[in-house]
């Protein structure tokens, strides 16, 4: 009872809180377990850890296979981000601003990669890249990932463009800027939050991706593929250390996104 004599929380509220707590617990569970595991002194995935050490982080840093896979994944994710953001933004402009026959069809096709099951897409991509002898080439994975990432960019940037008042761009053009310069100097800075979010989604969609990388990577492993193999073959807490590092990297990116993705700021 509160001092004002209000009655206690009704039962449905308590049930709601309990339910939310449960959902939160299930979402956080893996993190709660993985973090301590990565600092374990035990050579096995044992919970709770018998002692504490940084040995699995050391093992990760000293294993060139892990570092190779990490660098390759970052390289692929960054390239995918650039490619998907540029192409997806152009596509979004075409879908929002353009008036041409068959636009609805283009719209549906551009979102198709979200619907097609990953395994089917991967097999198709495999047979395509096998024909041009690009299996094992990191650039093949970039192309494969970019197709997957473009729909995210189209959706996020398209939504921003739809609510964007084109008068700004027209104003820039009347003031002496060509269409491209008007877009570069006036439109893109104003939809920057959407661009940053789109880039983040594109990066994550590539950095986390396993199936396409499995089919197209050949012996050149990405980080998810290396983790997958590690779980199959030689389970040890290195995988927990890598997971923690992955979570930290994505969290850092999120901080950057919320810093630069916020509203427009003056330039210069």
């Amino acid at each position, binding site marked *: 009872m509160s001092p004002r004599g209000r009655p206690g929380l009704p039962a449905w509220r308590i049930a709601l809180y309990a339910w939310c707590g449960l959902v939160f617990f299930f979402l956080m569970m893996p993190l709660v377990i993985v973090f301590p595991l990565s600092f374990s002194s035990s050579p096995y995935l044992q919970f709770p850890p018998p002692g504490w050490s940084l040995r699995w982080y050391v093992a990760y840093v000293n294993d060139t296979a892990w570092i190779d896979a990490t660098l390759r994944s970052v390289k692929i994710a960054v390239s995918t981000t650039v490619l998907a953001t540029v192409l997806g933004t152009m596509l979004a402009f075409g879908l929002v601003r353009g*008036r041409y026959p068959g636009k609805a069809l283009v719209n549906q096709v551009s979102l198709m990669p979200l619907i097609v099951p990953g395994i089917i897409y991967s097999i198709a991509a495999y047979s395509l890249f096998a024909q041009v002898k690009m299996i094992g080439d990191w650039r093949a994975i970039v192309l494969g990932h970019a197709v997957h990432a473009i729909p995210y960019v189209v959706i996020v940037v398209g939504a921003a463009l739809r609510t964007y008042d084109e008068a700004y761009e027209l104003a820039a053009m009347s*003031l*002496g800027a060509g*269409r491209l310069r008007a877009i570069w100097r006036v439109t893109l800075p104003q939809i920057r939050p959407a661009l940053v979010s789109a880039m983040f989604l594109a990066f994550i969609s590539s950095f986390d991706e396993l199936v396409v990388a499995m089919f197209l990577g050949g012996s050149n492993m990405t980080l998810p593929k290396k983790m997958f193999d590690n779980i199959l073959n030689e389970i040890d807490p290195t995988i927990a250390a890598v997971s923690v590092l992955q979570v930290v990297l994505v969290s850092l990116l999120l901080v950057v996104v919320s810093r630069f993705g916020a509203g427009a700021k003056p330039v210069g």
Partner: protein
Amino acid sequence: MGAAPSTRDSTHSAAPETSGPGLAVTGVVRRFGAVVALGGVDLAVRRGELLTLLGPSGSGKTTLLKVIAGFEIPDQGSVFLGGQDVTFAAPAKRDIGMVFQNYALFPHMTIAQNIAFPLEMRKVSKAAIRERVDNALKQVDLPGYGERLPKQLSGGQQQRAALARAIVFGPSLLLLDEPFGALDRKLREQMQLEVRRLQQKLGLTAVFVTHDQEEALIMSDRIAVMEQGRIAQLGTPQDIYHHPANRFVAGFMGESNLMQARLTGPGTASVEGGASLRFAAGAVGPAGSAVGLLLRLERPRALKDGEAAANAFAGSVVEVIYLGETVKYRIRLDPGFEIVVRWPYRESGGSLKVGDRLRVGWDAADMQPVAWT
């Protein structure tokens, strides 16, 4: 950006032989599918003149502005700026300053950066840009506001900043697209006069778009009233207010009594109820044809006993609308038709009430014939 495939006549007409027109539009047609937004518009704006495109929404005034600015390419006809054919020129190449409805100040740039933008596009040196931006800010009475962001300015200040950005590069034409719509009434009146003063001081050729007839009367050297993609009438504010070309223009230019009548002779016509009215003579058609008679609200006067007028009727007050300095009365005249008058409060007084009897009269010159079609 065309909505529909359009066929365009390739015939290029020569620039009209006006004495150095700032802007000339000849035979401009623009269709959107089956809709004719502009149905053959001819217009010449003299150097240093402010011309207003006045019309209701859908009359084509905004489409015409877009054609002039270069955001729309006409299906037929040409646009000349300072004698040069710019029909197909990109907006950036036209040297036109434009103030948009919501100002369109770039929110991610400071006011100074906004005003510097057109100069930067023209590759003006940094030092010169600084000086001209300062100068422009002074001209619109915003000195010291350069480092602020647009959202930190009030509506009126944003309006001034947008104006500064549109004139800083010395454009050959200034376009104003309903720029006062977002301001409250008092500020709007102040800005109207300020914009007008600045336009005259700098000798700018300007085209102003509005749907507000009062604004058009205050601002313009000349007014083009637009109706359904055509110019219904082009003339000075006095012309258009006192001698509207047709029923549409008369109805659009402020409140008035517009009566349908039938011509009975030179300068006379009969209205509903059979009363014969005398109006300012002018060739309007043969006897028996329909004509509109326009009587502004402030023209009729209350007649004293024994006072005569070309049109004089007894009647009774049906409705009183108090407007502050003036009062509007709806009066039913005995022959069987109604007129509305607006009289100063002091003269007609709060004395008149519904049901009061009085005599009302006006001269033949107070009543203009207007084509009824």
